[in-house]
């Protein structure tokens, strides 16, 4: 069965390693913070100027001067630091952040990503997404495999305005884990109970199925 948002986040959390500095985008990526394995130290970076994001504050204790990049009130963990936006993006652009997880409207089989603009729809702006995808050492896209209309988000070529080119390394969807390789989307894992056929059906870009594909383990 296809994973829900939390399932996707939980699977992504398996990609974390002890000592990682990680930037989690808005939406599903934010949920990854709830699944950091016990005993593992992962430091979350927020591009508005915080290293060491803590949990949401208790009711009544929200500090208007302490928000994350999604403008939600948060807390700061022990060992946190605050800094200006230029320093924050120095961390990102300079390759100091080990992993970036972000959502997408579309990903193409060569690793292009479209995530910020839908022509004719609400203009929001790219925020920090273009900086993140252009510079992160490792980028994982967290997304549903298809959009609300049931159309594949894993395409031969992106149709929407791009956020970055040839930058995505891995995609974790409600159906599968896939890596961007030279010739397309390489299927790595299936969501529990989801068949290779279903994934193939939901993937417009070239899907590489090499041997037996294991199920995700939780």
């Amino acid at each position: 069965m296809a994973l829900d948002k939390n399932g996707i986040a939980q699977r992504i959390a398996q990609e974390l390693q002890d000592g990682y500095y990680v930037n989690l985008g808005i939406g599903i990526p934010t949920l990854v913070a709830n699944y950091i394995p016990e005993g593992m130290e992962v430091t979350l970076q927020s591009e508005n100027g915080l290293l060491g994001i803590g949990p949401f504050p208790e009711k009544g204790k929200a500090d208007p001067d302490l928000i994350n990049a999604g403008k939600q009130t948060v807390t700061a963990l022990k060992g946190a630091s605050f800094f200006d936006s230029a320093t924050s993006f120095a961390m990102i652009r300079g390759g100091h952040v080990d992993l970036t997880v972000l959502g997408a409207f579309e990903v193409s089989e060569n690793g292009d990503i479209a995530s910020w603009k839908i022509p004719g729809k609400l203009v929001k702006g790219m925020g920090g997404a273009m900086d993140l995808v252009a510079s992160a050492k490792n980028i994982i896209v967290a997304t549903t495999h298809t959009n609300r209309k049931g159309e594949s988000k894993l395409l031969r070529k992106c149709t929407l305005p791009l956020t970055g080119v040839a930058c995505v390394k891995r995609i974790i969807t409600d159906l599968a884990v896939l890596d961007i390789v030279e010739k397309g989307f390489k299927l790595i894992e299936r969501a529990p109970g989801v068949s290779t056929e279903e994934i193939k059906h939901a993937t417009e870009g070239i899907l590489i199925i090499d041997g037996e594909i294991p199920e995700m383990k939780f």
Partner: protein
Amino acid sequence: MNKVVKNAEEAIQGVKSGMTLMLGGFGLCGIPENSLKALAASGIKNLICISNNAGIDDFGLGVLLRDHQLKKMIASYVGENKEFERQFLSGELEVELNPQGTLAERIRAGGAGIPAFFVPAGYGTEVAEGKEVREFNGKMHLLETALTADFAFVKAKYGDYSGNLIYNNTANNFNNMMASAGKITIAEVEELVPTGELDPNQIHTPGIFVQRIFQGTNYEKRIEFETVS
């Protein structure tokens, strides 16, 4: 060096139609509330505003938008403002969207006398249109140029009479760089103290970057998305 002015009204003296302003803050966090109110009250129009976001409909930069005081916005994310959307789609408002890190660095560069620099962000996207592309270390980069402003408005937690500033938590964000990039930089602070009371090792923005400073009043410090555990 006493740079203290009485209030926001006095601080904004000299701001004129057609000028370029920088406004610190990320969302509603760390925005110069008092200066924004004075700018709204001034009715000055045709402003070019450089700010990461555009406020919300009834607060922050949103108020200037509502009153049609802006000709152009240079920003990175404007998602929380319907009036912005409307004016943009109708062509009333010019908008230049920048990747957030590029925006931050362009402002820092403006303050630091660096007219242009290369970054990878935006290569292969519509942000790259018209920009010089060059490869460094096997990776494509865009040439981005510095941003400066006639007036920069920043907000800090503490400031002294000489213009030294200390920010609080994530309310620093764009304020520190913008302070350096304004021909005239106006700082409003929650607590204004005599020169000598701030620890020289803890100052985020040295006073050399600030031309006018005042103690703000009635800070609302609105929260955009109050999220609790």
